[in-house]
């Protein structure tokens, strides 16, 4: 196996150079270079209010992915340049955020004016005037409240796209949330004795908001009071409850109030379990996501069996069961990845493996969830030594990872693992991978590792492992890296077999830094058996004699590589066809059109028939003239 890959790479290189890593490269470099990134980010921000044709909720889950995987990388001590870059990203985001804030408002407004009831437009104009004076807070309140009609519409029209749009807006609202804003929204949405309102307010520490606000509202403007009452008399749909709760969760998470957040989430999850509404699906997926994040942050941390993160498995498994029964694919996908993450955090690999084999990952999950799922799957398989499978999953994960800067942590983590798995398979990752700006610094230790493996330098390899020991441990890749030792030796043997037609075992022993000639002899014998090199040993004279390498093009390998690539292209085509969105009931419309067309045709035919006579008549007339 190793041999086929190797020779493929080395000898048939003109053909083999376009191998998978470089493909990734070609694809990902342009999107990841900083200049284009800012542009795409800007475009995304601008577009977020307008259209749904982008990938489903890139921003929201991107931020989520950051929250989950980035953790490791932020405190990884990837010191200066990375930080700098982060800062730069931040700047970019800042500059990006400001103009679209207006833009998006305009566009949203335009949109709302366009297809919403007039009242909404009026409402917005109304507050926009006041919004100019006390800008950010009022605007945030407005943004949040603008989500409500969308949620209502999602329920009324049973179209989850509206819900997704609301969820996507969370990431832009997120930075501007404050307890005051939340309290105001809550007060204006609920009546004072509403139980949900009380719990929500308690969570943001504004229990007394009603007594204060209510008076102000009553005192201030009659019209507004009337409006708020009109709103509160209207039945508040659970979707809005949950949406506000998610905002509270996000707020608590950003404020690092993990205890409070965990408690709040517990209540929320309990409440969620009593509701059975399909329109809640994507919202509840988000609730579970934060629920698990909060518990992960509570001490003691996972490997200890008393960790709160482990105690929520029961809840998550229950959620998984329910979501499968209800065909709730959003929650199913989210909870599956959360469970895998949970198991892996405590290194319960066999349990994670069982979960994977017992459940099916929903095919319609959002690509971010798929990316995460693939990453965890890749990790499990790598630990179980099924490198080929792991490689496949990890390539998928890193390609599917969101290209926005917020998800750089996930991309880094999956690339790190991918690099190691490639090394373990006997491949050498492409040099260009390490040149990507988002990876360059974070992957530095891994780059040194690759260099050591590539030249078969055992001493250098051990030194790299020694020096970056703590980094590798923190990434959870240490044991995998220790397995690389044999690969280093194999590469060393291979290099020697390529460069010498005959070399004594003593020299091999010296060059590889092995302890005895006997070891060298066994190692070389094993390399021959495993197909790493083509050689024979002479025991009596103590040397290794390399065989001439055959012509690779005479074998089936080029054909197989070709087949492999064509299959990948075809699969890509199929997937992109599947990923396209087809409007509901479009085919009926087409049928109707066809019917109409047929009728028109019939009429036309009739007319022509009749027209024939006319023509004749006309012709007759003409003739007559």
């Amino acid at each position, binding site marked *: 196996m190793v041999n086929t890959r190797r020779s493929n790479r080395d000898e048939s290189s003109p053909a083999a150079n376009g191998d998978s890593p470089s493909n990734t490269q070609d694809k990902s470099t342009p999107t990841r270079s900083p200049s284009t990134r800012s542009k795409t980010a800007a475009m995304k921000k601008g577009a977020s209010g307008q259209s749904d044709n982008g990938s489903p909720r890139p921003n929201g889950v991107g931020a989520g992915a950051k929250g989950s995987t980035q953790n490791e990388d932020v405190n990884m001590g990837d010191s200066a340049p990375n930080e700098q870059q982060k800062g730069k990203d931040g700047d970019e985001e800042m500059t990006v955020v400001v103009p679209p804030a207006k833009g998006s408002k305009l566009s949203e407004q335009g949109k709302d004016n366009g297809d919403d009831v007039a009242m909404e437009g009026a409402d917005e104009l109304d507050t926009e005037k006041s919004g100019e004076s006390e800008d950010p807070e009022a605007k945030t309140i407005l943004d949040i409240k603008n989500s409500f009609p969308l949620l209502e519409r999602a329920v009324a029209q049973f179209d989850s796209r509206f819900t997704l749009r609301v969820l996507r807006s969370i990431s832009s609202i997120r930075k501007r949330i404050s307890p005051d804003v939340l309290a105001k929204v809550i007060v204006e949405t609920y009546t004072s004795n509403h139980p949900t309102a009380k719990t929500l307010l308690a969570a943001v520490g504004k229990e007394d908001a009603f007594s204060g606000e209510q008076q102000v509202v009553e005192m201030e403007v009659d019209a507004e009071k009337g409006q708020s009452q009109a709103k509160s008399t209207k039945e508040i749909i659970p979707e809005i409850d949950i949406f506000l709760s998610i905002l509270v969760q996000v707020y608590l998470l950003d404020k690092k109030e993990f205890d409070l957040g965990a408690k709040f989430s517990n209540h929320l999850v309990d409440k969620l379990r009593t509701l059975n509404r399909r329109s809640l699906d994507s919202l509840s997926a988000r609730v579970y996501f934060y629920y698990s994040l909060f518990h992960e942050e509570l001490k003691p941390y996972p*490997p200890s069996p008393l960790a709160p993160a482990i105690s929520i498995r029961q809840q998550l498994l229950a959620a998984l069961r329910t979501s499968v029964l209800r065909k709730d694919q959003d929650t199913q996908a989210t909870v599956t990845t959360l469970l895998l993450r949970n198991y892996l955090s405590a290194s319960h690999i066999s349990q994670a493996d069982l979960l994977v084999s017992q459940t099916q990952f929903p095919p319609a999950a959002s690509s971010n969830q798929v990316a995460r799922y693939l990453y965890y799957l890749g990790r499990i398989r790598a630990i179980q030594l099924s490198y080929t499978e792991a490689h496949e999953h990890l390539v998928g994960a890193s390609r599917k990872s969101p290209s926005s800067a917020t998800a750089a942590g996930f991309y880094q983590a999956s690339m790190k693992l991918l690099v190691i798995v490639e090394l373990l398979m006997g491949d050498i990752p492409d040099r260009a991978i390490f040149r990507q700006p988002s990876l360059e610094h974070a992957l530095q230790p891994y780059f040194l590792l690759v260099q050591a493996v590539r030249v078969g330098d055992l001493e250098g390899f051990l030194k790299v492992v020694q020096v970056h020991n703590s980094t590798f441990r923190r990434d959870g890749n240490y*044991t995998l890296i220790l397995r690389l*030792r*044999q690969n280093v030796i194999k590469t060393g043997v291979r290099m020697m077999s390529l460069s010498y037609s005959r070399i004594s075992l003593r020299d091999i022993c010296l060059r590889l830094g092995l302890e005895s000639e006997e*070891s060298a002899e066994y*190692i070389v014998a094993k390399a021959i058996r495993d197909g790493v090199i083509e050689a024979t040993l002479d025991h*009596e004279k103590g040397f290794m004699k390399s065989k001439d390498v055959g012509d690779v093009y005479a074998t089936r390998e080029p054909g197989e590589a070709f087949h492999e690539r064509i299959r990948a292209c075809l699969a890509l085509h199929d997937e992109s066809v599947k990923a396209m969105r087809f409007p509901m009931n479009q085919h009926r419309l087409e049928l109707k059109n066809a019917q109409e067309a047929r009728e028109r045709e019939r009429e036309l035919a009739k007319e022509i028939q009749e027209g024939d006579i006319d023509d004749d008549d006309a012709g007759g007339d003409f003739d007559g003239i």
Partner: protein
Amino acid sequence: MAEQELSSLLKQIHQTVGSHDYEKSQTLLSKAKLALLSLNALVPSPTTSASSLALARETLELGAIVSIRRQDPESFTRYVQQLQPIYDLPSDVLSQEGSNQSRITGLYLLLLLSQGDYAGFHTVLESLETAVVSNGGSQQSLEHDVFIQYPVKLEQWLMEGSYDRVWAATKSERVPSEEYGVFSDVLVGTIRSEIASCSEKAYPSLPISNAKNLFFLESEGSVIDFANARGWIVQDGRIFFPLAAEQGPRNEKEILATSGTVIENTLGYARELEMIV
């Protein structure tokens, strides 16, 4: 009450293990397990007292060691799995003192290794790694733990092919504790067959006297037996490996098979292309 009974039972078991009377310790062990059940300590629950937990741990560890000595891997695995929840308890509930955790875990690793279950081996190893990291900085402890390092080193040598070092390590004086010796025979068997399969590919022929050293066999007679068992030809004091015999006819067959797949693939492309266009 029951605890006293149990500890006296444990003492007896220790004695029988000392005198290698495993049958007797087996019967005593089942009694001890019954006592544990009545103490409700066989499976740890939050209410179980620390002293009975310690007793439970001792019983199960003894059981694991007895089953290793009786060469009964199934029952050993069972004991290890029963021990796992006890080992997972935090140290303030049950102190690490008197625990044979690393010894048992090392044995379990060795068992997985001798069964060739590398995936299981690495899974266990991975969980050890995280457990150690989480216990706060004592990263070195795992690397200095003889019981754990022994199987880890063996695995490394087996993977890279330093069979001579595996051989050296299985000699009785290098084994960290008595129980580990049980696996030596299995391991030697494993490496011998590994070396044999390597030699078939690596050497055109081999003098018997050298083969004796290479396969770690005692006499030239056993070399000849071994060679015959693997179907090698012994002639003029040399072993000839039957190689390349299957290469001639296989080539033609291969070509046939290859053209078959090529045709199949091309047809597949055509079909897909038609679907796309």
